């Protein structure tokens, strides 16, 4: 069975390139002919993940894996980690700085939004090391 795997590095606090990885991933999935509804949900989740990497991590990457049954999107970073995942998943809870909020990000909807749009959602984090989020979208 064919499997496609691609990595997209994301730099911390780089607002010049923020959103480019998501745009590339979307383009790729459209070329594969993935269902429009799945692309819509994945776009939202993917963009949230990318912006989280930019504003909260010390740098990381998005990994896209596609096979005939499923699209998997993994966000891996090196960074502060999340001490209380349940709290971080609460809508409206945010640790984003005032600067970042002024730019229209960090409203505290990110993780909840990702979980809502993915068919399955896994998150693991170690304080002081980093966070890994896995999102699965059935085809």
């Amino acid at each position, binding site marked *: *069975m*064919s*499997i*496609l795997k*691609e990595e997209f590095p994301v730099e911390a606090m780089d607002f010049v390139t923020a*959103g480019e990885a*998501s*745009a590339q991933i*979307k*383009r*790729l999935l*459209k*070329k*594969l*002919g993935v269902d*429009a*509804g799945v*692309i*819509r949900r994945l*776009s*939202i989740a993917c*963009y949230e993940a990318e912006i989280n990497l930019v504003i909260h991590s010390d740098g990381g990457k998005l990994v896209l894996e*596609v*096979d*005939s049954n499923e699209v998997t999107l993994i966000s891996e970073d090196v960074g502060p980690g999340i001490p209380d995942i349940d709290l971080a998943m609460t809508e409206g809870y945010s640790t984003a700085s005032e600067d970042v909020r002024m730019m*229209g990000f960090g409203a505290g909807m990110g993780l909840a*939004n990702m979980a809502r749009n993915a068919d399955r959602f896994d998150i693991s984090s170690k304080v002081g090391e980093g966070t890994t989020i896995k999102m699965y979208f059935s*085809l």
Partner: protein
Amino acid sequence: MSAKSFLHSVRLDKGKCVGCTGCLKRCPTEAIRIRKGRATIIDELCVDCGECIRVCQQHAKIAVTDPLSSINRFKYKIALPAPTLYGQFKKLDDISGISRGLMRMGFNDVFDVSRGADIASRAIMEKLKSPTCPRPLISSACPSVIRLIQVRFPELLDNIVDVRSPMEIAATMARKEFCEKHGVRPEEVGCFFITPCASKATAIRRPLGHEKSSVDGAISIIEIYGLLSSQLRRGQMGLPEKEQDPSHVGTALGIGWARSGGESLAIEEDEALAVDGIENVSKVLEEIENDRLPDLKYFEGLACEGGCVGGPIVFENVYIARNRIRKLVVGLPKERISESVALDEVTGLGEDVFFDRPIEPIAAMKLDDDFSEALKKMDRIEEVRKMLPGLDCGSCGSPTCQALAEDIVRGYAKELDCLLLLKQRVSEMAKQMVEISELTRE
């Protein structure tokens, strides 16, 4: 040409094309390739935005519209001027001058498309009131933007408001009124849009969201410009009094649709966003796709910078034309659409105001119908792309190295179309020749 094969009105004049990369690099959907020294257009990808018409130094890109003489197919001819037309002329104290000019050119009546815009505005306002309508609703006015969504943003197709364009609504109203007034049959009446763009010509042949167009042809503003200006110079003389009525003109807000932001203003929605220029529209559609604009209720996207006044087949510079429309609108009575257009006027037109079918996606980006085959091709594209120099020079005839990699895998191009790879291969061969000649020297 049959309706099915008619996908776009932007065409190439082969005799004029020199095969440069001007249009290749500017096409927002990467629909152009240079093959055998001439530009070719990939039918499914072309959205008729007209960027290539603007950029081509050789004037080899043309818009196929109907000649003025085509109106003679009908016993009675009605002109439907796009409000953009009013921005084309220097001294324009009142719109009726244009109507008179058009009638001298052979039309029996003139029906202003701004009246269609008034009705469309009212219909859209009603749609926005529904709590179940998608957010944001996307304007259906610009056919190039609709086709961009069909090709690149199919998941946003359901957001397009299912109200027909002002042009279509105007044609329906014009024909109905003319037939009632003069007691003639509908098929004896031809409605001709005076168009600033090629995109509308395509939308008449292949309507978006409904089966049949009420419009019978599209005549470009640039084609009639000369003739109409000389009619305007003649003034009111020589025309019977009864034909001097400024006929069928819409409200200031309806005319304002010619400029970017005009539609948003007309529909009285604060949470509306107007974007013009096809690249800008693409970028904001990406934002909508990412759900970055959750408060947005209405999106007005126009392919041409400045809006319809910036169309590729008009005479006047976009900024000058836009300013004239602004001045014209300022001088007209100020009335809101919700006060000047009664809901009865919309409902009175019945189903002809709304779509009767969904707009289907165009799967032109898809690599293969079979998913695992598409995955394999994607892998292969990545391999090929790594071999290519990444200069995006366009010499191969594809707009970027990534596009060439895809063209190769799709079977439309060869690796040695890349001049740098060819150069590399030639120098390797030369080296081998030298080696052989040295080895075989006696």
